[in-house]
């Protein structure tokens, strides 16, 4: 033990003296340490790190000893390696931390217990992969940790002595480590991969088995961005798909699904995963027809074609302010509901290219006339095929007026990631029984609402429908709420 202490004291002295003397002088001026001994002392130190905490290398070394300092700093290089939560298997993505066995600054050896976690009936003991000092514990007891994210950092002094017996854990973790190391010291360790990217992009590349050197980078210094790799994947997939030609007899005509129809296929397949609830309602249109006829001439003078849709859209927006959950989205894993502030009502349109759903932005702030103007603009753009991404993205609620073509009863399909949709059938003149028990005729439109049953229940959509019905049957009510 005393030998150790003496050596440590000697090393400290060595550093202190290094601060003052230059390289040439140093080589001659230390009689008690031969160059051979210097090597043995430093190598001795590499093994004795476990029992002593060393002083960090002095920051201000004179320039003449820069050469020597890089050599000694290789021995003293303390790197904080993140220790990620390894993949436990069986599709487990997150675990609860039950107990920590280490504290910040505690020294651990390989295979020492770090913490205990639990995931759905399985308790797992996480052990350390290398020797070092624990730093920056990321979670407290009772927190949920995600697989792949670091649990804590281990400051490993000297070379990485990880010799892991568990093959899969080693493969995943060392890959993660190498990538993390790259992120921390990018200019130095470029010899492994010459591509400059973020770990997220590397992960995508790994998943799709793409060689990053083949992807063209569009960021600074040729950095490969997420868009680049996604574009590369798209480019890779499309020629493949075009090559796939099903063998069919000469009587059938093969038409590849492209463009808008392809987008529709994709969205509808995604919508199928969502459990949908449909609610139908019959709405009496007489008063609205009367009002619209009265307003039609004024609107035409202002150059706007006033149909029933602007009224429906505005009524929807008013009702959505009372039922904000219908103006939301569910994220992919169905963990969070994202409430949107603005009502961007998407209108389903049939264009020569197929079904498109552009939306009118911020309907809650617009008047019926402005909504009508926007609708007209969108319809013109759709007909001429000039709809851009700006009109198509960020819709929060959908309406479909398929009844304009034909149809009475519909069961529309929710357009993910939205949570609700409404569809209108044809306005028909039918006999109804009025309050006094007499039969009279009225104009009836059938409205069907569909909603994502994961977060919307029947009562909510029914109440929404009831409010919407009253807005349309007695449009004067909206006057009270004009903003």
């Amino acid at each position, binding site marked *: 033990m005393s030998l150790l202490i003496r050596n440590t004291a000697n090393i400290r002295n060595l550093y202190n003296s290094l601060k003052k003397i230059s390289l040439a002088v140093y080589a001659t001026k230390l009689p008690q340490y031969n160059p051979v001994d210097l090597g043995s002392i430093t190598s001795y130190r590499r093994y004795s790190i476990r029992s002593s905490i060393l002083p960090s290398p002095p920051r201000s070394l004179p320039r003449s000893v820069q050469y020597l300092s890089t050599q000694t700093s290789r021995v003293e290089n303390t790197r904080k390696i993140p220790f990620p939560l390894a993949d436990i298997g069986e599709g487990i993505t997150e675990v609860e931390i039950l107990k920590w066995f280490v504290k910040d600054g505690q020294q651990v050896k390989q295979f020492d217990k770090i913490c205990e976690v639990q995931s759905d009936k399985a*308790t797992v*003991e996480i052990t350390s992969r290398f020797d070092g000092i624990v730093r920056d514990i990321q979670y407290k007891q009772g927190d949920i940790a995600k697989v792949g994210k670091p649990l804590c950092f281990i400051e490993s002094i000297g070379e990485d002595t990880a010799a892991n017996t*568990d093959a899969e854990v080693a493969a995943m973790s060392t890959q993660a480590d190498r990538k993390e190391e790259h992120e921390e010291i990018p200019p130095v360790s470029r010899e492994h991969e010459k591509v400059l990217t973020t770990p997220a992009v590397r992960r995508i590349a790994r998943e799709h088995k793409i060689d990053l050197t083949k992807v063209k980078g569009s960021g600074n210094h040729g950095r490969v961005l997420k868009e680049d790799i996604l574009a590369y994947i798209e480019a890779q997939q499309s020629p493949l798909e075009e090559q796939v030609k099903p063998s069919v007899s000469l009587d059938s005509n093969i038409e590849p699904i492209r463009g808008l129809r392809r987008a529709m296929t994709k969205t509808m397949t995604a919508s199928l995963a969502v459990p949908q609830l449909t609610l139908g309602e019959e709405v009496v249109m007489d008063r609205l027809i009367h009002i619209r006829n009265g307003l039609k001439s004024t609107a035409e003078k202002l150059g706007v074609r006033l149909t029933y849709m602007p009224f429906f859209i505005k009524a929807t927006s008013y009702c959505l302010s009372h039922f904000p959950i219908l103006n939301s989205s569910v994220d992919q894993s169905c963990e969070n509901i994202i409430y949107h502030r603005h009502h961007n009502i998407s209108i389903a349109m049939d264009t020569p290219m197929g079904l498109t759903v552009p939306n009118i932005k911020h309907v809650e702030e617009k008047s019926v006339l402005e909504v009508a103007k926007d609708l007209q603009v969108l319809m013109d753009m759709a007909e001429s095929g000039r709809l851009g991404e700006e009109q198509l993205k960020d819709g929060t609620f959908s309406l479909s007026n398929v009844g304009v073509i034909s149809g009475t009863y519909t069961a529309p399909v929710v357009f993910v990631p939205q949570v609700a949709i409404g569809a209108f059938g044809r306005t028909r003149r039918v006999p109804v029984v009025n309050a006094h028990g007499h039969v009279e005729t009225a104009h009836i439109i059938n409205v069907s609402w569909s909603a994502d049953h994961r977060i919307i229940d029947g009562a909510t959509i029914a109440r929404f429908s009831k409010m919407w019905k009253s807005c349309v049957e007695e449009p004067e009510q909206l006057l009270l709420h004009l903003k």
Partner: protein
Amino acid sequence: MCYFTTSTNIFKNLATEEYFLRHLKNNILLFYCNTPSVVVGRNQNIFKEVNVEFCKYNGVHIARRRSGGGCVYHDLGNLNISLITSRKEWNKTRLLKCIRNALQKEFHLPIELSERNDLRLLDRKVAGSAYRITAERAYHHTTLLVEADLWSLEQALQHSGKFAIDTKATESVRANVCNLRQYKSSLHMIDICRAICKEWYLENGQHVVPNHEYFVWLDNETTSHWPELEAEYEYLKSIQWIWGEGPNYRLRCRLFFGWGYLDLTLQVERGNRIVGVDINSSSGIPYQLFESMIRALIGVHCLGNVLSNKVTEMSRLEATNYGEQFHEIAKWFLNNLPNE
């Protein structure tokens, strides 16, 4: 290698399982039966899952295992099976499939594997599972209901009536259960054990000698030759592990006495230490005395005898007028909370 332990002490058997996990290297199939006891999962709250009063009056042991999951009832008609393997070979369903195949082949029982990784006999649960994974080894254990006392099971696995618990602990998923014996009354524990061993050997491609005892009786009653097992047994038996290793919880209970009523809320940290007390009372006792009682109780282990000692001490020093009332409160603690 298949072993059946001779001990029926739950703590000894759990310690044996842990010992085999840590100190042996080969794959082991371990069987054991216990005297009536209730075993809670690693991260559960005992008051919430177990009827502590029922267990106390009927001599049912309460234990905490090292693997996760929900709460189970053990008795001599309940066979526990544990498969201890290396971590690479850990598989969630291997043991259950083996048991299911064995029961189907030998006894023609219509057992199915459900998605929650339990075994169901005509929609009633007969076996559940729990797992533990360490650096190099892992185990999967399950308990198979052969001829257990289902009435006791139902009574023991209920929320303690007297306490309202607020905690983030793991909750058990309740299921309707039935005994294998109810389907086929000629079943014996030993026959089932033999069938499972045989199936295990067959699945592993090992040679099976018919009419031979397939497993080895393991005497773990005397643990003196295995010091690690002894240490583990002591630890699993200790109050610190059983009552102290659950997550933080808030316990609320109502104490009714002849002279009034007390609404007591204890905030207990992991390690079974009380960090917060709240008392509301409708008796005539002045609030300062309750405040001094609160000060006496904070930082103390949440155990019956400890709390009652603290209360009697405090009342002796300060609340001489209300000595009788505090004595009754102390007695309540002694009777209703777990003792050292």
